[in-house]
């Protein structure tokens, strides 16, 4: 589904990504693992268009997307979450989710004044879906709370719910479990499985090896921006380079 080929990225003389190539299979959960600073979040940034100066090729279903502005990449069906749960702080939780809905895309001033009813409807539909999602995970009472007043765990929940709001087929989750206590991890795990069940493809960055082993079908290992190994978790775990990389850090 996603083909990443020969990606090179340098910043200020430092080589951040080094001739990186891997493939993401549709409908599976792929783990992207590696020690801290290996470049995992950077890979996300390159693929989702937040970094535009990498060389190489990234193809989504045979379509070149490297260098496209990030909002266009999103519209082609890619969505990502952020490691530190970047919710929009001074607006409500409900609005946070509505902003992620494809229903409100292309809102324009023309529509505001000449197609108000349609806009109303789209917004209401998005709000409806948002409320359902919030209810499902049990934080419906936080709908109108400003996102900055949420707990860390709740922000991470909202971060994943945004993925559900979007219609993205390829989803990049950047450490969705980090910093959470076991109760929350269970909830988020459930949500990740739901994403798969609904036909989406998931790429997961995570440090918790147990979770990676449990959840992922396929694993790509990175260190210093280079791919060390790729394959099933059990195979990769035995790989000498991989072991060294983790021991060395």
């Amino acid at each position, binding site marked *: 589904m996603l083909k990443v080929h020969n990606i090179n990225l340098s910043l200020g003389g430092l080589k951040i990504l080094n001739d990186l190539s891997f493939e993401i299979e549709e409908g599976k959960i792929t783990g992207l693992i590696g020690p801290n600073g290996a470049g995992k979040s950077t890979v996300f940034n390159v693929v989702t268009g937040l970094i*535009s100066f990498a060389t190489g090729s990234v193809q989504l279903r045979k379509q070149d997307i490297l260098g496209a502005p990030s909002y266009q990449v999103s519209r082609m069906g890619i969505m990502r979450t952020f490691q530190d749960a970047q919710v929009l702080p001074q607006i409500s939780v409900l609005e946070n989710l509505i902003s992620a809905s494809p229903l409100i895309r292309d809102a324009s001033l023309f529509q505001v004044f000449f197609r108000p009813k349609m806009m109303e409807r789209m917004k209401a539909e998005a709000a409806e879906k948002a409320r359902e999602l919030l209810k499902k995970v049990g934080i419906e009472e936080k709908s109108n709370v400003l996102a900055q007043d949420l707990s860390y765990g709740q922000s991470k929940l909202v971060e994943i719910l945004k993925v559900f709001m979007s219609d993205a087929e390829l989803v990049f989750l950047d450490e969705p479990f980090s910093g959470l206590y076991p109760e929350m991890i269970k909830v988020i795990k459930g949500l990740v499985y739901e994403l798969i069940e609904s036909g989406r493809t998931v790429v997961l960055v995570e440090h918790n090896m147990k979770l990676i082993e449990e959840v992922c079908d396929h694993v790509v290992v990175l260190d210093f921006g280079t791919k060390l190994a790729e394959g099933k978790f059990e195979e990769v775990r035995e790989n000498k380079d991989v072991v060294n990389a983790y021991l060395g850090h």
Partner: protein
Amino acid sequence: MQILLNGLIVGSAYALMGVGFSLIYSTVRYFNLAYGVIAVWGVYVLLFLMERFAVPFPIAVFLGALVSIVFGLGSYVLLFRPMYRRKSSPLVIMVASFGLLIILQNFASLVWGDTTKSVSLSDQILKGYEFFGMFITANQLAIAVTAVLMVVLLELFLQKTKIGMAIRAIGDNQELTKVLGIKTETIILWVYVLGSFLSAVSASMYALEIGVKPTYGVFFVIKAFIAAIIGGLGSVRGTLLGGLILGIAENFGVYVFGGQWQDTVAFVLLAVVLLWKPEGVFSKRRLVSIE
């Protein structure tokens, strides 16, 4: 060629102003817009001492700079530090510094009046010099000499003293300063002292050319800001170069377009740099969102 020379002279004043501003920014990470107006107060004190007590120019500059330092430290202790402790964002602190700028500038207007007051080296008219077909006035010579002197002293300070090294380190790497064993608070205080001193001296020298009036508070900090941006925030050498470039560009601009467009040239240069190479010539910080 004369234009180039004039530009270099003015540029050296801008360069010094820019360095003080840049050092403060790289240490505390917010823009202190009151930077220029404390220099203006220093110049007014200089004038006062020269006119009322016939204090010789160099001593008066120094005393004026001391006053600026008092203003600078005062503003830090009374306004910026409390705001920083409250975790105000850099933008909020900058806006507050702008409020301070307005207050101090208008107080200067109330106390000293709005007319431009001229500053001169001494009572006698000093001759200029001619060389290589160019003419340099006594004022210009004084500015150039002072600028060079200040740069040399600054480099010595930054390279040879412990505090200087800490100041350089804090721009890049706060961990390193812990290694040097100096508290961050001490470094910040020193930077404010240094910055205020540099701004006052450069403003005093530049006043030889353009005099002083309250609205120069804004004028100075804007030139300092532009010099720092062109050269790259946080880089002393870069900012020095940035100031020189600014001075030369302005003088050429004035020559080609006329004196009224001087400020416009400065801002257009700023816009060009921000668009083409936002990190500045020798960069250390980015002011542009990554996209």
